[in-house]
């Protein structure tokens, strides 16, 4: 698990007596801090978990990102800390309220109260050719959301996706759900890497893909 896969701006930092993933920015959810550094909890963040597990996300730091399923901003605040302009889409009002708070002190984090299943409702704000889409939505049809949003992604961009099996079908075997989702995903993407996130997130599959 080398740090070669971590983007610039994400480091393993010493907190108290523990080395943890961290970014530099204003604290958001009561996470441990050390100066500008704030710990990034892989148990609370799919993307954090994927970094801990050594995924090659293609994220290098400073890129333009579209984040789908931003919730209250826990993960996307870390993304905005190391990335460039970051568009954060969240559909539910209550978490979006916290998302706005996280975006307030981050001048390149843009919160949007929008439905990720309907890209035309934010295509007038989110620019084309983003370098990465990070997706963590907990609705049915997660692969479909990724496919519909492919229009925002640069030709050589990366989709970094966490698929939650239980959001698709709470009774089916996760492996079967993942296979179906990957099939759907392949309509628009070439899948580069997949691995279970179970060490941090039960019944989740991490996926890195690039447009076909």
């Amino acid at each position, binding site marked *: 698990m080398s740090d070669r896969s971590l983007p610039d701006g994400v480091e393993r930092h010493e907190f108290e007596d523990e080395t943890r993933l961290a970014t530099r920015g204003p604290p958001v959810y009561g996470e441990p801090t050390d100066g500008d550094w704030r710990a990034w909890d892989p148990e609370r963040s799919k993307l954090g978990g994927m970094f801990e597990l050594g995924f090659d996300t293609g994220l290098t730091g400073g890129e333009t990102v579209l984040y789908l399923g931003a919730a209250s901003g826990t993960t996307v605040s870390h993304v905005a800390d190391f990335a460039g*302009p970051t568009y954060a889409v969240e559909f539910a*009002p*209550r978490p*979006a309220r916290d998302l706005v708070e996280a975006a307030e002190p981050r001048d390149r984090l843009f*919160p*949007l109260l929008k439905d990720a299943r309907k890209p035309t409702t934010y295509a007038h704000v989110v*620019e*084309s*050719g983003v370098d990465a889409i990070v997706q963590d939505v907990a609705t049915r049809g997660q692969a479909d959301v990724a496919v519909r949003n492919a229009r*925002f992604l640069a030709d050589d961009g990366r989709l970094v996706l966490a698929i939650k099996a239980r959001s698709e079908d709470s009774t089916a075997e996760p492996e079967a759900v993942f296979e179906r989702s990957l099939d759907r995903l392949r309509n628009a993407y070439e899948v580069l890497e997949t691995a279970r996130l179970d060490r941090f997130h039960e019944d989740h599959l991490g996926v890195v893909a690039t447009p076909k």
Partner: protein
Amino acid sequence: MTDPNSEHDGASDAGVPAAAAPIDPGDGWFAGLPAEDVDDSTQPTHARIVDGTADEPREWPRLAVASGFAADEEDYYDRLHAATTGATRASVRERERADDRQLIHAVRARDDCERVANELSERAAEWSGSLFDDVDPGIEGARAVAGREPSGELERRAIALSERVVGLADERDALATTIDRLAPAVAPNLTEMAGPELAARLIALAGGLESLAKKPSGTVQVLGAEDALFAHLSGHAPSPKHGIIYTHEFVRGTPPEERGSAARALAGKLTLAARVDHYSGERRESIHADLRARMATIRARSGSDGSDEGGSTGDDEGNEAENGTNGGDTDE
């Protein structure tokens, strides 16, 4: 990347002649907004972010600069930040307020389901009792009948009727779960103080969170007195001077001689909680601590430290008492 021809092509795609302006911003959120010296936290900007659409994304930062909206990309992103945070904050507030309508629908639908389930269960029990042995009254009785295997048309109909009762009772429970989830989002302080059920009822009786927030506390104290009066006339509840807040443990658990003071104090804090929920939406610890202190004082006066019987289940018990009342009433 800065090929002007491609920009003109883009503008033509949007159906506007390229000659109309140096660069046409197409469907971009900034189209039609003034270029300079505007506050991006204003209404027209919000409306563009919230209501705008585009079939496809484009290179908005570059188009915004080319069309003269922003001086450079950094300026564009600064303005985008102001516009998106302002618009999202405003629409979050609007959506959360609108949810009090949904809460009212849910609480009224729950009451309807419960009333109809109880009423129908009597018919179902009466009919089933004539066909099967050992039929218990009420919804649980209907649940037992619904599991039977019918033989013949009459049994099929009687069992189907019981299934409808069970379906209504299940929907009532599902609605209660929805209310439990919705109420804290709509009114966090009121829900913490009153519980989801009573909070939803107060909002429904007032006709919305806003009108509840604007009522004097004396009115809140007697909201829902119609129901309490009915319970009182049936001999199962005290006189309706408390309104629906009687179901709160702080009122019911206080000795009768101090109950008026308790109801008045509780109504005051509930009114305050509704106002904080409506106007700020943030949880405020001080009003909850104030209420606890006030209640301790009132109960100490009567020489009782108050009874905790009922506790957080106080609301449920209140409802069951009402159900029992309804059932008993129509039986006779």
